[in-house]
């Protein structure tokens, strides 16, 4: 490659590189430094060593509660969302009438799902006199206190996340359509039933996509903010107080940016460790090109 081409290439890449440095790398490094400081946004940060982390792991009941709620939320929503997305993708893989309409209709919620408007709509749907309780009443079921009962509130927020299964579904659908049809024909000739075909042919062949969706959905679930912020404000009794909400309130309501940065770094480490575990485990269950990865 000539020198001119190299410069031109760097020039084309520069918007991305500058954006990455300014909006990702710099805040990333700054937050790491701030996590070792006492910084109230209005005056210069004061270095305090490991004080923030010490407080986090020894004396902060709210952090422990928030971490537990976040883990419950992630370990509930991610498997359910993946299972539901795969289930719908399998159905939409059949040649049905108006199939393109149904594919679009199921995808739309994932575009709208994270928006403020949908979170507000959720608030009305699950209100004490909302459509959900009205529907239950027609079945003779007592109305449920979705947001006011600590045991139900997290479930309601979880449902909002599940409703946004469209993007995972589209990826599953693409994977299902890329499977060689001759494999199904061979299985059929050998007398395999539908479940056996799905379990022994479809599932192994889409494990790379399951793995990809697992990582993406897990990272996104750990970062959930809009739903609990708009619908429950983290309550009642901090039952929906996910870590991003706690980080936000520490930073912008209590003006403790140093402590908020420390929580953010703990969250980052948790996501990183779980991602590494997922990568390590993938050796045992993800198959590429039909062969078990070495």
């Amino acid at each position, binding site marked *: 490659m000539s020198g001119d081409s190299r410069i031109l290439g760097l020039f084309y890449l520069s918007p991305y590189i500058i954006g990455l440095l300014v909006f990702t790398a710099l805040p990333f490094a700054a937050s790491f430094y701030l996590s070792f400081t006492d910084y109230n*946004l*209005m005056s210069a940060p004061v270095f305090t060593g490991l004080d923030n982390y010490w407080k986090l792991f020894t004396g902060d009941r709210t952090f422990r509660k928030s971490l537990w709620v976040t883990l419950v939320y992630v370990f509930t929503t991610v498997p359910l969302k993946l299972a539901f997305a795969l289930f719908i993708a399998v159905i939409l893989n059949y040649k049905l009438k108006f199939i393109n309409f149904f594919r679009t209709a199921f995808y739309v919620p994932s575009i709208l799902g994270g928006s403020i408007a949908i979170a507000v709509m959720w608030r009305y749907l*699950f209100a004490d006199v909302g459509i959900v309780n009205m529907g239950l009443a027609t079945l003779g079921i007592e109305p449920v206190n979705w947001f006011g009962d600590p045991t139900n509130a997290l479930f309601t927020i979880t449902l909002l996340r599940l409703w946004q299964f469209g993007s995972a579904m589209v990826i599953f659908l693409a994977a299902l359509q890329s499977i060689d049809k001759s494999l199904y024909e061979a299985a059929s000739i050998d007398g395999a039933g539908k479940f056996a075909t799905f379990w022994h042919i479809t599932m192994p062949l889409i494990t790379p996509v399951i793995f990809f969706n697992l990582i993406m959905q897990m990272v996104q679930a750990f970062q959930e903010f809009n739903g609990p912020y708009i619908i429950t404000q983290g309550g009642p009794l901090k039952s929906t107080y996910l870590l991003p909400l706690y980080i936000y309130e520490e930073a*912008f309501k209590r*003006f403790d940016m140093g402590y908020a940065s420390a929580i953010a770094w703990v969250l980052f480490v948790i996501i990183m460790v779980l991602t590494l575990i997922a990568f390590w485990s993938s050796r045992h269950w993800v198959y590429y090109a039909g062969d078990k990865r070495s």
Partner: protein
Amino acid sequence: MKLTKLLLATAFAATSLAPLAHSADLRMSWWGGDSRHKATQVALKACGDKYGHTIAAEFTGWDGHLEKVTTQIAGGTEADIMQINWPWLPLFSIKGDGFADLNQYKDVIDLSQWAPEELDAGSMNGKLNGLSVSTTGRVFMFNKTALDKAGVPVPKTWDELFAAAKQLKTKVGPDAYPMNAVKETAVLLISLYATQKTGKDLVDPAAKKVAWTQEELAAAIDFYGKLVSEGVVVSQKNNAAEGNLNLFESPKWADGRISGSYEWDSTFSKYADPLKGQVLQPVGMLKNAVAKTEGVYRKPSMVFSISKRSKNPKAAAQIVNCLLNEPEGITALGTSRGLPASKIAAKMLTDAGKIEPQIVAAHDIIMKAKGPTVSPLNEHPEVRAVFLDTLEEYSYEQLDSKEAAEQIIEGVNDVLKKF
């Protein structure tokens, strides 16, 4: 030839723009409801036209506004003119250097329109950081139409309030309530009861500690518990079930099923507007015979501040003066931020009959009622968070009133130690 034409055109454009050379592009941020948003935009247009400035409007609801302003100030991107809540002054400018010192613009802003104590309230460390827009306080307000329809008299004491709840349940139904008290309003109702009983504000300014004993605060929390158990106010749990709606957005407020609340007098219009065709009546401080004081929670309302980083502070000062002291701004803003603190604005609106009688009545109640001086630390975000979180635990029966009082006092004292 082309170049000559271009140069001539540029010279002509520069000449024609010369009279506007003093004009400035400004930004102003505020929080509020629809009526305030509309009035302020009209006022900014009028004042902008008068001085040849353009002012971009940045407005939100109350929720999240502190976070927005904090982020902007930390990033140095705040608006030139800001509506700042009075208790936020110590957060942003404890040494007085967080905002522009408006004393430097007294040739532009007519400071004689404010009483010296009002200017003191907006000053930090001797620097005038904000001009008081109005004095405000919490006032009781009842939907008179809804109560009349049910044949229930408007309550004037705590005992009458409890009696009203019983009558409403009988005559209207189990989901009729004469009062609303969730979250911040619940905190302030508890504070009101404790203040009436003790004659003291929450914060002892000299000792920098909570002024109430654990028993006194526990009694006030028990009082709130009684309000819930006797159906005077909706419980926190049931309010959450409705989706944590603001009262003024709630259908139950609009149709009169909730027929009273305890709100800032400056927000009277926000609560009156949804009650189409119904009368919202401000009422004097509810109390019982044994109360040591009416316990009014009165404070300077929001202030208008100018960014210390504004590139056009003088132009911003012109707009602030126009909004608060000149006919164009006064007429357009009206009572969208309560009754104005500026003498000339108050006189102009009163003379013109522009102030609704109920707003005058609400403000009169606040100004005439007695109570201890309120510390701005009552509304420090951490103090408020301790109170709100503990009250939620009490409401969900995780704590009894004594434990809740102990937790609040310990938590608030921890925050007060920092000042």
